[in-house]
């Protein structure tokens, strides 16, 4: 049971968003611009950063919700996403994305854990200032979303297939003006 009285049957962040729509609005606008707006990082790459950070924060709902969406964009199976979460260096993602995930991992620990060497390495692998900025902000934002979801003790369905199944629809509908109850 959640720590506060949330509307019934809404998983993860949806309950808190229904509880207070005024704060849900900028949270959703932020998610939309960070994860879906035009960007040199693909939507899949950005959802993967979100998924990875959420796994570091051990947030079940967020890592599965965004993992399902990442899976759709990458057209891969769940094992691929799990492999990235477990040890991204050993996967086939680009060296640029690997260098950005290292930065994201440091942000998850704390902003000061990001080193100039990590930044240099990302730039060496072709990351632009915008891509580095967005990686840091996506990682930071998911440190917020994960704490919001878990800090209120929200409920999430435990069957991982549900999130995979919903991935395509979530990818298509985006983070603005979606129906919390669907």
């Amino acid at each position: 049971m959640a720590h506060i009285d949330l509307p019934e049957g809404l998983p993860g962040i949806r309950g808190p968003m229904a509880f207070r729509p005024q704060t849900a609005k900028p949270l959703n606008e932020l998610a939309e611009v960070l994860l879906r707006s035009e960007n040199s990082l693909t939507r899949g790459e950005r959802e993967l950063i979100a998924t990875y950070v959420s796994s570091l924060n051990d947030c079940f709902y967020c890592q599965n919700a965004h993992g399902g969406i990442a899976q759709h964009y990458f057209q891969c199976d769940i094992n691929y996403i799990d492999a990235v979460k477990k040890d991204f260096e050993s996967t086939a993602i680009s060296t640029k994305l690997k260098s950005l995930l290292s930065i994201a991992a440091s942000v998850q620990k704390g902003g000061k854990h990001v080193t100039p060497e990590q930044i240099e390495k990302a730039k060496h692998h072709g990351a632009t200032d915008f891509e580095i900025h967005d990686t840091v902000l996506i990682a930071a934002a998911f440190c917020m979303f994960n704490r919001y979801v878990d800090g209120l003790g929200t409920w999430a369905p435990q069957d991982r297939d549900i999130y995979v199944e919903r991935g395509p629809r979530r990818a298509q509908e985006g983070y603005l003006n979606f129906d919390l109850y669907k």
Partner: protein
Amino acid sequence: MAHIQVPDGVPGIRSLVMFRPESGQYLYELAQILLRGESSLTEAERELIAAYVSSRNECVFCMCSHAAAARHLFKDKKHVVNFVLDDYKTAPISDRLKSLLNIAGKVQKNGKEVLPSDVEEARKHGANDRDIHDTVLIAATFSMFNRYVDGLASFTPTDPKAYEEMGARLGEKGYVLPKQS
């Protein structure tokens, strides 16, 4: 020096939202609603929670600017801010605020640290669902802002006067996206 090419001499999050106003506008909108919108927590209390979380995240820029905003809003009770940053458990604040700071501190570590007993304690001291929701979201939001500001190594002023001015501006005007230079 910041990790990316941001406007020179502009401190903290201001430099970052000038670099990327497309996302910055929503960060400011969130801060404005959360810290200045209608709430059962006063603006001063909410700034204090923000400063407290920022101190735990060792983010000097956020801690100093929000502590300054809290002092501005607490007015003749501004000494409370230093007491809380030093040790909230013995600070001259209400038990309700202490129990909410306890929750905020746990959220700062990880959302799962918040236990039903922490929430019960807060309710015992008069906190309602909205108070708890807002406390959790403020703590979560500052866990984002602190990482954003330090993760990009944005400029952190060392002059206390700079923060006093920021505090007064935040106290008077709230969160207004800076104009592009």
